[in-house]
């Protein structure tokens, strides 16, 4: 056996050992991963529950930790929403830790509050927790008027407390740099809380500011529902007018078209024709993707 062959032998053994061990390791990990998915999900706030403690232990890197916690909150929200169980237990604590680590991370208050306040299964259905989060945000960032807008939004939309909503919009309008429409909004909410036009104004603002696809889609769904509710209200008026004119109820929405009261068969924002529902009132057609509950 030559010297070269003797030297090459350990190299060959090492190469074989490397490939074999790597393959075995990959197989083992894949098997472990598969088992892990069957176990209960790891609770992201199980071990450290206080943002203040984490802040003390962060050695000045609390901003980075806050980013990680915000990312976990977003991913947790997305994952739980997909499961459709409506279980968002960890969302509040994750958002609290995030904002305790970085009290100026405005996005965590703004989107976090929407995640918390939305009715299940779209959100956690915890408007009180959302209010508490926004109030903490206002305390840490008193001159940021958008947080007052969000506070007013939760009072208006989730709690239907129009008086408090109006006063939140009014307080926000007094902050430096606040858009002028905040004052108008405060007045219209105070005067006509619960009106579809006011709701549209609020959701349009949410839609225009949303940098997150989930929130943008939610705002779009709400705006579609508001539009459909308005259309149905208008159609009901025309149906009453038809009864007055013809002395009989319309047999379908098509009667309004034939009478020239409508230029064409009206469709809802998902493109489905409006139909007549129970009691001769206008309603969404079969197969419509609009959820009218979102309009109220």
């Amino acid at each position: 056996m030559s010297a070269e062959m003797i030297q090459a032998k350990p190299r060959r053994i090492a190469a074989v050992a490397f490939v074999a061990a790597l393959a075995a390791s990959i197989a083992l990990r894949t098997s472990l991963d598969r088992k892990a998915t069957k176990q209960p999900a790891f609770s992201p706030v199980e071990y450290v529950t206080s943002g203040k403690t984490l802040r003390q232990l962060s050695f000045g890197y609390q901003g980075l930790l806050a980013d990680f916690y915000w990312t976990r909150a977003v991913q947790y929200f997305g994952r739980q929403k997909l499961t459709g169980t409506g279980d968002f237990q960890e969302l509040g604590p994750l958002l609290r830790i995030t904002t305790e680590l970085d009290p100026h991370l405005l996005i965590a208050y703004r989107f976090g509050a929407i995640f918390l306040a939305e009715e299940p299964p779209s959100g956690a259905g915890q408007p009180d927790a959302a209010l508490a989060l926004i109030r903490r945000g206002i305390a840490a960032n008193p001159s940021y008027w958008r947080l007052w807008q969000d506070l007013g939004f939760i009072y208006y939309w989730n709690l239907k407390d129009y008086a408090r909503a109006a006063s939140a919009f009014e307080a926000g309008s007094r902050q430096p740099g606040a858009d002028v429409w905040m004052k108008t909004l405060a007045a219209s909410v105070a005067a006509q809380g619960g009106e579809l036009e006011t709701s549209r104004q609020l959701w349009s603002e949410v839609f225009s500011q949303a940098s997150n696809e989930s929130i943008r889609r939610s705002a779009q769904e709400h705006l579609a529902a508001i539009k459909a509710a308005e259309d149905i209200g208008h159609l009901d008026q025309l149906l009453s007018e038809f009864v007055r004119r013809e002395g009989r109820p319309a047999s379908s929405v098509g009667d309004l078209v034939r009478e020239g009261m409508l230029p064409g068969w009206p469709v809802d924002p998902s493109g489905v024709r409006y139909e007549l529902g129970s009691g001769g009132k206008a309603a969404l057609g079969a197969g419509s993707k609009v959820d009218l509950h979102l309009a109220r």
Partner: protein
Amino acid sequence: MNRIAAIAVHTFKESVRERVLYTLVVFAIVMIGAGLILGGVSVGINQIALVNLGLSAISVFGLLIAVFIGISLVWKEMERRTLYNVLSKPVARAEFILGKFFGLVLTLVVNTAVMTAGFYLVLWYEKGRLTAADVAPLQAIYFILLQLALVVGVALLFSTISGPALSALFTISLYVIGSLLGDLRAFGEQSGSAALRGASYVLSVLLPDFGALADIAPAAHGELLPASRVLAQSLDAMLYGIVLLSATVLIFERRDLR
């Protein structure tokens, strides 16, 4: 002065020959680039995450460089017996220590500049342009440099009295304690014991305050710290640097090098 500068330049050249230095800088730049991924998987914090991760990487890798090169500076000279050559020339021990300190600080300034360039390149890639508001991270980087200079001072001090392993342990321990001084003082005040309050106060004024120099979060939000704070921290770091260097010189002067 010329002799200190000559030792500093020599230390710098010696430090930049360390392969570990390049590995750490490359790792730091990779970490800074990872900020793009973190921003991508989250919502609405692309730039904040990039600044936080970028500055944290500059700080962490700067600390590693400061500790692992700082602790071996004097020890290596003694091990290789090159120290005796230097000191046989008309070079005072104090000049040797000062030269070593400034040489390593120069190394850290150059490394930090490279990492900062990498950071701004990634930021520019993310934003498409840089604006006046992007100057805020520079202030945080200045604070990081002050922190690193103090860590070098601590590492140098310990490297004159012990070997590299113990020096690293002592330096890292002091860094951890120095990062928690604010809490130490708060615990003392809340304890209700006069002795504990006094002890925590004494420790908080005697030890280096690394926590006060770790202020990355405002930079991530584009906020500049007040000039008075920057001035006060700079002065404090300079004074504490003098304390560390004088203590190192005092110990090194008394050390039996035979």
